[in-house]
């Protein structure tokens, strides 16, 4: 059976996706990728003509959060369209076959489609004690990741654990867990951090790949800039309250009912980059700050150790000068915040475009003010 199975246009027809749904999907993707609107036609056209590459989804030391995130996205039904964009051949949590039949499916992809398929990895990879802390079909995660990823055309690490080892790697890292890039050093990985990943971004990366035949512009951590280039704080719906010196002082207080800034409750938004506030979750319904809890910087590098304790306010506040600690900030100290925007402009990147939609990767300075 051939593993490249017809074009997307055919696939969409088979799955009953209407032209209207498809157009809506394309425009959402163009917006997420921060491409100018004139790219819409190019994306739609390229997607319709694209061959459907084979995708395999590997799960190692994971909680299935990235899988679940994919299944629970909606409006537009990104997961549906993603399923249609790709020939999804292996994914333990949802595939019909088990045991031998499941492993045969994976083997078939690696053998017959070497160099052409996309490998998505979820979960950390244990390296201590010969890798015995995660085995599937009697093989170690490291063994499987090495074989599958070195034969892939592209590798995508979804979620914090697959990117940098995530929670599993946190001190004292009992299993010697690392992310995919470190576990299999030879392969080129696009890292989609977050706990879990936001599937809107993952879909956008795949769309970019299918349209332009390469991955989008990446930062120093190999994360796509369109998703990880801007500070949460600069996109936050509660930002005006920060600027006005209006803070939640205690859980459940008047400020918490009025949607005031969560900085004093430990919010890491001023030190974290991600498009979480704009893309949001579950069909754009909400994001953590909207439900009243501070950001925990889940898309930042090694965030579990680096950003905890999570209820301790950030020691230095950008815009207030280095000597001002949380307890000193309040109604009286609101000057100088305008400087913040300027400071972060260093981190924002203007994507240079060459002809034919070819996108040039640029070196970027870290967006984090503490880096």
């Amino acid at each position, binding site marked *: 059976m051939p593993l490249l199975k017809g074009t997307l246009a055919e696939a969409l027809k088979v799955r009953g996706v209407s032209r209207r749904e498809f157009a809506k999907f394309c425009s959402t993707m163009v917006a997420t990728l921060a491409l100018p609107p004139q790219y819409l036609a190019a994306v739609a056209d390229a997607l319709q003509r694209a061959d459907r590459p084979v995708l395999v989804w590997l799960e190692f030391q994971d909680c299935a959060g990235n899988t679940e995130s994919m299944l629970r996205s909606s409006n537009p039904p990104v997961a549906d369209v993603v399923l249609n964009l790709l020939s999804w051949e292996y994914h333990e949590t949802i595939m019909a076959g088990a045991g031998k039949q499941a492993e045969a499916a994976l083997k078939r992809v690696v053998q017959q489609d070497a160099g052409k398929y996309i490998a998505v990895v979820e979960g950390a990879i244990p390296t201590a004690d010969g890798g015995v802390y995660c085995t599937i079909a009697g093989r170690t995660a490291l063994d499987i990741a090495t074989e599958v990823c070195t034969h892939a055309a592209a590798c995508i690490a979804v979620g914090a654990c697959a990117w940098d080892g995530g929670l599993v790697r946190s001190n004292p890292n*009992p299993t010697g867990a690392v992310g995919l890039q470190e576990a299999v050093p030879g392969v080129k990985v696009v890292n989609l951090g977050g706990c879990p990943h936001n599937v809107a971004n993952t879909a956008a990366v795949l769309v970019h790949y299918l349209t332009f035949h390469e991955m989008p512009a990446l930062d120093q951590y190999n994360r796509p800039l369109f998703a990880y280039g801007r500070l949460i704080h600069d996109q936050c719906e509660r930002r005006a309250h920060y600027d006005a010196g209006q803070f939640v002082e205690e859980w459940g207080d008047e400020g918490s*009912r009025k949607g005031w800034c969560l900085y004093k409750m430990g919010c890491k938004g001023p030190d974290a980059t991600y498009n979480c506030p704009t893309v949001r979750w579950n069909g754009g319904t909400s994001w953590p700050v909207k439900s009243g809890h501070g950001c925990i910087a889940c898309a930042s590098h090694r965030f579990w150790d680096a950003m905890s304790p999570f209820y301790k306010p950030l020691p230095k506040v950008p815009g207030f000068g280095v000597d001002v600690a949380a307890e000193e900030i309040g109604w009286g100290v609101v000057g100088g915040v305008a400087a913040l925007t300027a400071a972060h402009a260093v981190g924002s990147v203007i994507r240079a475009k060459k002809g034919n939609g070819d996108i040039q990767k640029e070196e970027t300075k870290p967006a984090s003010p503490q880096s």
Partner: protein
Amino acid sequence: MARIVVDPVTRIEGHLRIEAQVEGGKISDAWSSGTMFRGIELIVRNRDPREVWLWTQRICAVCTMVHALASVRAVENALGIEVPNNARLVRNIISASQYIQDHVVHFYHLHALDWVDITGALKADPAKTSQLAQSLSAWPKSSTAYFKGVQDRVKALVESRQLSLFTSGYWGHPAYRLPPEADLMAVAHYLEALEFQREFIRIHAVLGGKNPHLQSYLVGGMTTSLDPNEPQAPLNPERLDFLVQVAQTAKTFVDQVLIPDVLAVAGFYQDWFALGEGPGNYLSYGAFPQGGIKDTARYFLPQGIILNNDISKVYPVDPGKVAEYVTRSWYEYAGGDQAAKPPSEGETNPKYSGPKPPYEFLDVDKKYSWLKAPRYEDRVMEVGPLSRMLVAYASGQPEVKAMVDGVLAKFKAPPTALFSTLGRIAARALETQLLSNHIVGWIEELRANMNSGDLRIHNGEKWDPSTWPSSARGYGLFEAPRGSLGHWAEIENTLVKNYQIVVPTTWNAGPRDAKGQRGPYETALLKTPVADPERPLEILRTVHSFDPCLACAVHVVDARGRTYARREI
């Protein structure tokens, strides 16, 4: 004698391996092994107990939030914190929606393909499928044209050979027994359920910012402040209206799609009422407090224990009687591996002694799993929806009694039929219906509180660690969708000293103990027929009926006796 290995067991969370011995077409012995280990309890040590829920929640995202709730409860128990009534309600609404979403996904996306042959749907007559659907339910998507449309999509899928994730299924296996029309109806509902769960879980986005991994729990309450007059309040009249609107879709879907489907599928597989019986002991910690957390008598789902399949008696639960064996698990106890240890004094030193990977078979005569073997007074206990429904039934909870009796009457079956693979599936479906009957009422209760001026959502008396004693111990119990969950926390000088978790799938999927008693999966698989050892569909049926969650099940409790290298700062 043939040894069958199923690894990976798919359509579950995490990494599970089953080895089974088959004699004369039936399973004569079975071994259940968890093959992944992370060590999260070790990782949360020396951290702020107020944030441990964020860490433990990452144990699992399929049953996301259950480890968050159990964790804040454990810390609240240790520090003597009562949460405000509104926080109790928000927690109950989140939990109820988790049950509903989880159970629907389990039936359609993780379990249905064990009973439904997708390729069978091709042979169905859409007109007859429509008749079948309309005879079972008032669900509007039931016309001939609708089923013809679904069938055309499946046909195109099969003909284009683009089966993707369905490629490797056991299609055409002799154990599939649904008529083609039922196959087609189920396939249509598989797709509809995908859509339903995706929209329904927006309740969690409102109450927790996102799903998976909600972010609104606090030790002492929740972050979701409520205010009838504030447009930016996390909860206000508009957002409560949205919650009610979404919650109502659950009752319609469960009443008109899930329940009729489960009953219809069960009708064709009634022999599975006699297969898959577990150890016969059932545990429920109880769930959904209707008052204070300690007022267990008023829990919506009652706490209790049933022994030896005797539903005439319900015994009380004492969490102090829980203990774990590592005799056949890849850990060692300092005082030897023969005696069990209670989680409050737990000790786990991981020590792998299985075959060097890559391997073909485990050495099942020795240690063979990353799961420990929890026992209650040395008894093997089954946990999950079946246990909860049996405890509620035996406790005389009127609504549960009526529901269960209704199903038994439909199949002219005695209550003992519940001790089975199908019994687990039926109990899970009934529990989904039970909660979908009540979730809207709980949201309205929250609204009534808000309108009456009760805006309390967090008890901050003990938020500041300087108010804490120098040491404290506590536990938090919860019935996760998959069964009884307990977190045990020990706090010293404002940090976590020790943290221990005993999880539903550890109860159900755990290995043998010092006495050689099999775990519930291992017991339930005995006597299961296996028509084709190359395609062991029947094993999946019984294992999936428990709804395994292996990421939850494997954990380190304590590293006493083993020093870990500090690999990272």
